[in-house]
């Protein structure tokens, strides 16, 4: 398989792009016409480009050209994802306070209650789709709860969010539909912020409303911010949860080991992130001539920076393709990126991963996947990576049995 297969969205390449990345890594940093970009696939090179935000701009992160003066000013644009310092640092510090690890820890009971509801609802089902019933609805339920979105609106929320994110790295974008979805979504969030009582709280929306009312953000920016955070944490966490459940079901002895030693669950979650990174890579724009991995990159070039390839670089990881629960550098993977744009929601994503695995191990004795491993369908995108369906049979443990 080649990069052309991956970019062409061939199902086998999307499911397991490992051999494509091995080939890209072996070639070193090189220009690939398939993506009109220099491909960066080695761990050290990826890390270097991500750290060096002065030379490598984030304005083309998702592959689209940077905003220009002729663009529709009403078009919704991410405020964090596509901005560079100093603007990025200022915006980032506003929302960072809402996502500190101690803040995220305080949300654990909410996340656990939602996870338990989703798992318990499957108790009497014969077969279930783990994506449809757990991985897809759970992150949007969690972020909606943290934003204060009424429960009745959660399904609408999810549909909007998926519509907007689904077009990243895929070929299915319909500009008219996208614009309509953005208008509806923006109007809804604007209304939600109008209704907010302005009291300082520990939820994300309060933090943003406070910045809005203090004049640190315009209303339009505040709405864009909220939507960006919602979208950023939705499909990525869905894929993270789906891949973790798949690994849990298909790895011999793993569930028993984790049940016997629950302290290893966070390490499993790190390995899941490393092996099946929900974001496979993002783009950067070279602002000046530079050299990466010995290759000259002229100013103005695009770079495709492959986190997943870095996470499977044998130079950085012993027994690289294997899931190991005792890696000393377990959390040093690049699934959340690195540098000023490293994922702001990483603590929340990790929490959701750990809680879902804990809840499944506690309630379910055995998960049997019903689709052969080489037939599991993956999202048609080479940026977002995750199964779109995981039919399974769950053998619940008798209620009341302690784990």
């Amino acid at each position, binding site marked *: 398989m080649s990069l052309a297969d991956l970019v062409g969205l061939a199902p086998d390449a999307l499911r397991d792009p490992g051999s494509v990345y091995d080939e890209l890594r072996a070639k070193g940093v090189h220009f690939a016409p398939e993506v009109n970009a220099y491909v960066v696939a080695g761990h050290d090179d990826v890390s270097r480009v991500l750290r060096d935000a002065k030379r490598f701009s984030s304005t083309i992160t998702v592959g689209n050209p940077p905003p220009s003066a002729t663009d529709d000013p009403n078009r919704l644009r991410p405020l964090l994802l596509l901005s560079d310092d100093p603007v990025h640092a200022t915006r980032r510090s506003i929302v*960072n306070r809402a996502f500190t690890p101690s803040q995220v820890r305080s949300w654990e009971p909410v996340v656990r209650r939602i996870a338990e509801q989703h798992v318990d609802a499957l108790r009497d089902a014969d077969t279930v789709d783990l994506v449809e019933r757990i991985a897809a609805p759970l992150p949007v339920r969690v972020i909606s709860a943290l934003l204060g979105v009424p429960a009745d609106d959660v399904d609408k929320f999810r549909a909007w969010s998926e519509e907007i994110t689904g077009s990243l790295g895929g070929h299915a974008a319909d500009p008219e539909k996208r614009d309509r979805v953005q208008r509806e979504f923006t109007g809804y969030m604007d209304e939600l912020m109008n209704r907010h009582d302005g009291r300082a709280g520990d939820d994300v929306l309060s933090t943003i409303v406070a910045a809005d009312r203090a004049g640190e953000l315009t209303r339009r920016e505040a709405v864009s911010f909220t939507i960006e955070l919602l979208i950023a944490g939705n499909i990525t966490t869905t894929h993270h949860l789906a891949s973790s459940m798949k690994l849990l079901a298909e790895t011999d002895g793993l569930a028993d080991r984790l049940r016997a030693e629950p302290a290893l669950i966070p390490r499993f979650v790190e390995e899941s992130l490393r092996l099946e990174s929900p974001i496979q890579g993002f783009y950067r724009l070279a602002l000046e001539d530079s050299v990466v991995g010995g290759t000259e990159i002229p100013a103005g070039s695009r770079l495709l920076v492959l986190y997943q390839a870095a996470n499977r670089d044998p130079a950085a990881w012993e027994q690289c393709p294997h899931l190991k629960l005792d890696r000393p550098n377990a*959390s040093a993977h690049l699934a959340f990126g690195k540098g000023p744009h490293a994922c702001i929601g990483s603590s929340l994503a990790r929490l959701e991963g750990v809680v879902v695995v804990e809840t499944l191990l506690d309630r379910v004795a055995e998960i049997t996947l019903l689709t052969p491993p080489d037939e599991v369908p993956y999202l048609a995108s080479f940026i977002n990576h995750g199964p779109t369906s995981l039919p399974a049979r769950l053998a619940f443990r008798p209620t009341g049995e302690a784990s």
Partner: protein
Amino acid sequence: MSLRVHVDRTHCELHGQCVERVPSVFRFTDGGDLDHLAEAGDDLADDLADAQFLCPAQAIEVGPA
């Protein structure tokens, strides 16, 4: 009296919140790596506690020198 500052490099994701908060202790090098003083004065205890609290990767340790 002074404080010892340590950053766990396996956890640090270089978000830069500490650089924003306590630039007299933390800075980014030209290549975007984190550099920091190993010791800081007691007068920075509150600022360092903020940096610790804000660090998305919880990679900062502060203790007595």
